[in-house]
């Protein structure tokens, strides 16, 4: 059973803000995505590329499984000690010249960041790619306060310029191919003051060079930056950002003020613990031995980098997730996206079908817990339970186990809320009642042989009514045999 906690009620991420909830049930969103051959080709190609690279990089590490075990245990130990570690982090960051803020939810985090930016007098910020800030809808909140938020990560820039939604944890624009990206740049950049050459090709290096030109002046003039954090070290107050393009370094180094928004689960206890995660993350994520740039900073360094530092610690449904003894391991996620890249469902539907900033297998177990499972009711079912995600996860989150648990919670919550059981619940209860006794089961088996009468003429069953029609739309049903196994056994051996 899910542990029921006496004391504090579980508070989920609020509705109406940010990007955590499905807009429509997964099957409906997936159907549209499946009908888009360009999207499917883009995602298939990209995930195929990254899958092979990741495998090569993982196979090269002799102690990969030992690192996974350490990473998994470190995360579990961190969760168990979270209150003391958060307090320690706060002490360390404060002692080294930073200011720590606590946000119960997305609204509060947005208010804190907005007022911090306003206090500097700036009307724009540069942003390092951050899932947490997309989760809380920070850009929209800043915009509402008249503050422009410029995404500087190439993929986030593509999403922002395309007025699009991110669809992948690592590469938010994975659903776009080079030709589409060129079109977005051509259409949007001139209006923002960046000249786009008439003969712009769709070669990735050329597109990356254009993004450099587009953002260079912003980096050199920005007074405020907003970032997320990959890790925070409780022992020292150190924050870390893992990136590739150098846009992160630009944001973390050049502005006067740096505001970091971080989920409370991103802690590690000690500096030494990063030796595990800095090995697991790059190989799992981009399939590289090491990502081009990792920056760590501990408070303010006089004469080097931002002189005003803020850290916003975000709950937004995380403490509620932590209350579930099975589900809490979703908080161990280090956002590498390996589970997305190996997922046969994600590969075919893409990330938008999941509705949340966290798509794919990890999204299917994290989003419903942050929001409460009733607000993302279709996500736990968006998996065939094939287990590829569990094998790929660098911190060994047993995603299939979590999916099964969340399905149970969803079914049980529905049963409590609705006096009339669903058709499915009735069918399941009937099946369970039948199978709990062998006599009933044998009777049911005999009844099922009615199917043979239907099939007699053609040797195939006709198309069937809903819900079995969902099966027969693309597959034949097996025709029940003359004799069950148990009848044969009774006849031959009985």
């Amino acid at each position, binding site marked *: 059973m899910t542990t029921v906690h006496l004391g504090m009620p579980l508070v989920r991420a609020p509705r109406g803000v940010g990007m955590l909830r499905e807009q429509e049930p997964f*099957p409906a969103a997936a159907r549209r995505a499946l009908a888009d051959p360009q999207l499917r080709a883009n995602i298939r190609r990209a995930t195929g590329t990254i899958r092979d690279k990741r495998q090569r990089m993982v196979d090269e590490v002799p102690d990969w499984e030992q690192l996974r075990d350490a990473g998994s245990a470190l995360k579990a130990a961190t969760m168990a000690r979270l209150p003391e570690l958060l307090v320690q982090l706060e002490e360390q960051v404060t002692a080294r010249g930073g200011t720590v803020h606590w946000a119960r939810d997305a609204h509060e985090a947005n208010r804190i960041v907005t007022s911090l930016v306003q206090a500097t007098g700036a009307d724009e910020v540069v942003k390092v790619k951050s899932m947490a800030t997309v989760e809380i809808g920070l850009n929209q909140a800043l915009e509402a306060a008249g503050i422009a938020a410029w995404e500087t990560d190439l993929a986030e820039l593509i999403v922002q310029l395309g007025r699009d939604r991110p669809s992948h944890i690592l590469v938010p624009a994975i659903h776009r191919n080079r030709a589409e990206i060129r079109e977005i740049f051509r259409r949007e950049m001139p209006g923002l003051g960046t000249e786009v050459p008439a003969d712009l090709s769709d070669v990735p290096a050329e597109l990356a060079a254009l993004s450099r030109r587009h953002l260079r002046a912003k980096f050199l003039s920005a007074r405020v930056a907003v970032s997320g954090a990959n890790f925070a070290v409780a022992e020292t107050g150190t924050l870390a950002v893992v990136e590739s393009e150098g846009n992160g370094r630009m944001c973390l180094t050049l502005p006067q003020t740096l505001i970091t928004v971080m989920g409370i689960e991103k802690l590690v206890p000690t500096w030494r613990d990063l030796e595990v995660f800095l090995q697991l993350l790059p190989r799992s994520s981009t399939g590289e031995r090491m990502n081009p740039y990792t920056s760590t900073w501990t408070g303010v360094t006089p004469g080097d980098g931002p002189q005003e530092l803020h850290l916003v610690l975000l709950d937004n449904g995380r403490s509620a997730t932590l209350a579930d003894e099975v589900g809490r391991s979703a908080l161990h996620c280090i956002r590498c996206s390996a589970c997305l890249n190996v997922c046969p469902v994600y590969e075919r539907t893409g990330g938008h079908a999941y509705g949340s900033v966290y798509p794919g297998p990890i999204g299917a177990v994290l989003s419903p817990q942050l929001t409460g499972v009733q607000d993302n009711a279709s996500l736990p079912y968006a998996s065939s339970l094939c287990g590829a995600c569990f094998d790929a996860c660098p911190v060994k989150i047993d995603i299939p186990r979590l999916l099964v648990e969340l399905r149970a919670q969803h079914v049980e919550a529905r049963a409590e809320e609705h006096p009339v059981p669903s058709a499915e619940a009735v069918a399941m209860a009937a099946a369970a009642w039948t199978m709990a006794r062998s006599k009933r089961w044998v009777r049911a088996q005999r009844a099922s042989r009615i199917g043979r009468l239907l099939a007699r003429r053609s040797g195939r069953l006709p198309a069937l009514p809903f819900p079995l029609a969902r099966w027969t739309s693309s597959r034949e049903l097996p025709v029940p045999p003359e004799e069950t196994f148990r009848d044969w056994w009774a006849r031959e051996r009985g």
Partner: protein
Amino acid sequence: MRIALLVTCLVDTLYPDVGRATVTLLERLGHEVVFPDRQTCCGQMHVNSGYQRDALPLVRHHVEVFEPYDVVVAPSGSCVGSVRHQHAMVARRAGDDRLAARAEAVAGRIYELSELLVDVLGVEDVGAAYPHRVTYHPTCHSLRLLRVGDKLLRLLRHVRGLDLVELPEADQCCGFGGTFALKNADTSTAMLADKMRHVLSTGAEACTAGDSSCLMHIGGGLARLRSGTRTVHLAEILAATEQPA
């Protein structure tokens, strides 16, 4: 050795040949097979669909039926996976720790067919002959839940006359996933289409696997295409003593 057969509800009802082949094979290897006829279903569909409370009586029933036996075999990776990885969980979640302990003990004595043959009985050449071109789909639960590795392949490689052709992207899910195939029919079908494309690309007469449920899915798709390619359970190949035509 005295081996109890968990035939699985699917094989019992729809694929009795797979159960018969399992019996034939084990008897040919000199073992005694018993069929506890009170068995019904392991409850996997209920658990994986969120109906863990409904699955509880099925778990209890399974434990009661199979407790007396030292060795149990099932021709299904996913049912063995359910018994091994879910039964105690279902009991514990319902607050029945005693049942959980019993379920764990029973689960410790159940083997998927290839596990039984290779690990327990120590045999890879079962004396089978099956002169056909076959491709092998490793099912997700045998591969990633039971970790059977290449046991099924090793068994197949000893089959006389068998022309085993490698399946491209073999370890990709076929898209069945139990009720997933109904709840997410479109995605399931897209996954199945790719699996069938790979099966047909091998030019095999038949696709084999250790799970009737996945074969029902793949076979249902192949039949719809009128492709002429069959599905055949591993047990049926290992039981066969077909002479080349």
